[in-house]
């Protein structure tokens, strides 16, 4: 396919993306876009981390300049919780907002999507768990991402932590694709190195899973492979040179590419298992992905070896003359050493996961809709095995 000799995919595919603006100072257009979308009162969703940065003040100024009233809602934790979404809805309604502006990482953007859905559909957020469950569109949503991995600003995904049952609900719907994404690489400079590593790996796993997804398309392939290439060659550099705006730009772009790819091709077992893990133990999502990715490659490889081989080549792994199990081993080793180079050396047992947690984690993970597009359809037992190998 890549060299132009193979057949192209002609099965029906759709590609959905929001209007997005990529580039330096994109964040400053917030007021302008809020006005264009008919905003009268903005619910500005953010979190305590962003409040400490200069981004919030800048965005507020942009709203003031456009003469648009706003109210800030910032009580959102990492792995945003269902009750936080409901608090946000209360704030939205009490202040008679008519548009949502989200400034932050994946947690903030996902929470903003949750607030939007509930504010027009008037049902608890758990009602919308699953695929295509949203009846009414949400209010206009503008997203300004401040991390280079989530890509919630372009995706049809929203992940909300079901706090009482301790798992992350995947809400997948074209309804949660934002109206506008203002993608500004400058915002990445407020990330510390650990967050840079975690979110970068998150983007890499997005691209990986989208590329091997059974719903992938020629268009998503383009974005997925380019995302893998960009992350592979720039994440470590950016990790070491956090203020290099070119490197930050490349990571932000790779996150956008990976986002466009996975939003349309969806994901696989890395994410179904990471959602369960993140909800159960409240672990950073990127780190969970980093730990799980090599093990899921191991499980999937034989079902999509052609595609994994192309990924290996994209990662500059020499595969000529090797048989499939050799390539698989090299790919897995490469991913593990990539993790290590970014300071992620832990396994699940380091993260206080115990053998006794595995049945619970697997029971939740097997229900996640991300499994639907994994190249190899898993059964619960498969999930249990992958978790235990990641211990």
């Amino acid at each position, binding site marked *: 396919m890549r060299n132009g000799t193979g057949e192209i995919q002609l099965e029906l595919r759709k590609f959905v993306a929001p209007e997005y603006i990529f580039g330096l100072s994109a964040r400053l257009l917030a007021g302008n876009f809020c006005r264009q979308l008919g905003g009268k009162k903005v619910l500005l969703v953010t979190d305590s981390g962003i409040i400490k940065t200069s981004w919030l003040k800048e965005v507020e100024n942009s709203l003031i300049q456009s003469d648009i009233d706003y109210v800030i809602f910032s009580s959102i934790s990492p792995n945003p919780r269902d009750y936080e979404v409901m608090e946000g809805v209360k704030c939205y309604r009490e202040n008679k907002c008519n548009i949502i502006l989200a400034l932050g990482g994946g947690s903030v953007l996902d929470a903003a999507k949750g607030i939007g859905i509930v504010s027009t559909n008037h049902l608890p957020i758990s009602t919308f768990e699953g695929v295509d469950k949203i009846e009414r569109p949400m209010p206009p949503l503008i997203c300004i991402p401040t991390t280079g991995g989530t890509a919630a600003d372009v995706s049809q995904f929203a992940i909300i932590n079901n706090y009482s049952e301790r798992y992350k609900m995947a809400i997948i719907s074209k309804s949660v694709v934002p109206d506008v994404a203002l993608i500004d690489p400058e915002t990445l400079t407020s990330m510390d190195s650990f967050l840079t590593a975690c979110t970068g790996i998150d983007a890499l796993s997005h691209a990986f899973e989208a590329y091997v997804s059974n719903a992938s398309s020629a268009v998503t392939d383009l974005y997925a492979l380019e995302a893998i290439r960009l992350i592979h060659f720039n994440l470590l550099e950016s990790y070491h040179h956090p203020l290099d705006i070119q490197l930050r730009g490349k990571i932000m772009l790779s996150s956008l590419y990976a986002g466009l790819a996975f939003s349309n091709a*969806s994901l696989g077992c890395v994410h179904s298992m990471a959602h369960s893990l993140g909800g159960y133990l409240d672990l950073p999502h990127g780190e969970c992905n980093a730990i799980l990715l090599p093990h899921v490659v191991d499980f999937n490889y034989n079902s999509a070896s052609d595609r994994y081989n192309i990924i290996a080549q994209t990662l500059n792994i020499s595969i000529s003359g090797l048989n499939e199990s050799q390539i698989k081993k090299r790919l897995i080793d490469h991913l593990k050493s990539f993790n290590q180079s970014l300071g992620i050396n832990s396994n699940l047992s380091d993260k206080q996961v115990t053998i006794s947690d595995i049945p619970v984690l697997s029971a939740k993970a097997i229900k996640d809709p991300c499994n639907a597009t994994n190249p190899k359809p898993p059964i619960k037992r498969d999930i249990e095995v992958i978790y235990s190998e990641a211990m």
Partner: protein
Amino acid sequence: MSEEWEKYRNKIIGLGEGSSRKSYYPELQNKIEELETSRENLLTIVNSISDALFIHDQEGKILLLNKKAQDLYQIQEDEFDRISIYDLILDPTDQNKICLIWDKVIKGKSYVFELTSVNAKDKDEIPVQVSINQSIWNGKKVLVAVVRDFKERKKYEEELIAAKKKAEENDRLKSAFLANISHEIRTPMNGILGFAELLKLPDLTGEQMLNYVRIIETCGARMLNIINDLMDISKVESGLVTVSLKAVDVTEQLNYLFELFKPDAEKKGLKLIKVEPTSGSSIIIYTDKEKLIAILTNLLKNAIKFCPHGTIRFGYTTQKQQIVFFVEDTGIGISKEKISTIFERFIRGDHEMSAKYEGAGLGLSIVKAYIDMLSGKIWVDSEIGIGSKFYFTLPLSPDQSICKK
């Protein structure tokens, strides 16, 4: 792949039903359409109701009015913004009153009250009932006034009051009639008893006795008359009188009446003249013979009674579909005030007359009742001291509506 996941996968790709991207704006568009539809329907409803409707602000400025309001107050569609509610209420007291009501309605109360308004064009009075409530117009508190035209209702009210008055008057008349009739019965009765007593006296000459007996006879006849009249009127009152139509030769009946009343008239020194159209040929009408005779008898008797000297003429003329009878005298006449009431039951031309002329005052009301039954009309021209001319009409040909009676 399990079926469930296959379904998920298709939906994620976005090929499932309803899985397209949803945007706020089509939804808004739908809402706008819904609003427009509902506004359209509201306008239709507002313009269909039979009450006038105004939406106006607290200064009386009209913001919307329906078709009925335009019609009732004669306001053109393009001029309502120049007209204030105050232009439709002229009375300053009412203006002040409504101002106070508006204050309370704006605070959330609702009011229903009656008022005399005027139309915008020629200030004709329109009695109305107003129901007034508060609403919102372009974010401002306004008043919605539903105005019901009470013109008809006022008319019915007045008619009802008049009917009540009349019923009371009738009641009063009946009492007066009872008193009158008692008097009318007592007078001949006194005569009968008095002269019967005198008859018992010894040494009466044959002539005296004969004279007393004649007086008793006269009194008896007068009483019988009264009782006959009473029976007739009570039959009319209770609806027992029926009509029987037959071919009646008018000339024959007039001749009969002429012969009948000629002696009475001559006895009083009056001239009785029968008048017939010059054509001379006899005329046949379909009517109730007994009633026709009763009518003419009554009118002739009255004429003789109230005519001290002069001439009494009676007869008929014909017009298109009807025959017009008349009975004319040169008697005392009837005053203008009394003319309208002489055909009403239990009223006689003048109370003062009862002293001078005997009678229970039933004759003309019987006449009127009979003429009504025969689909005719009766009226009278009269002048005090000159005389009276009574007319009544009857249809020439049989009338279905009479037959039913």
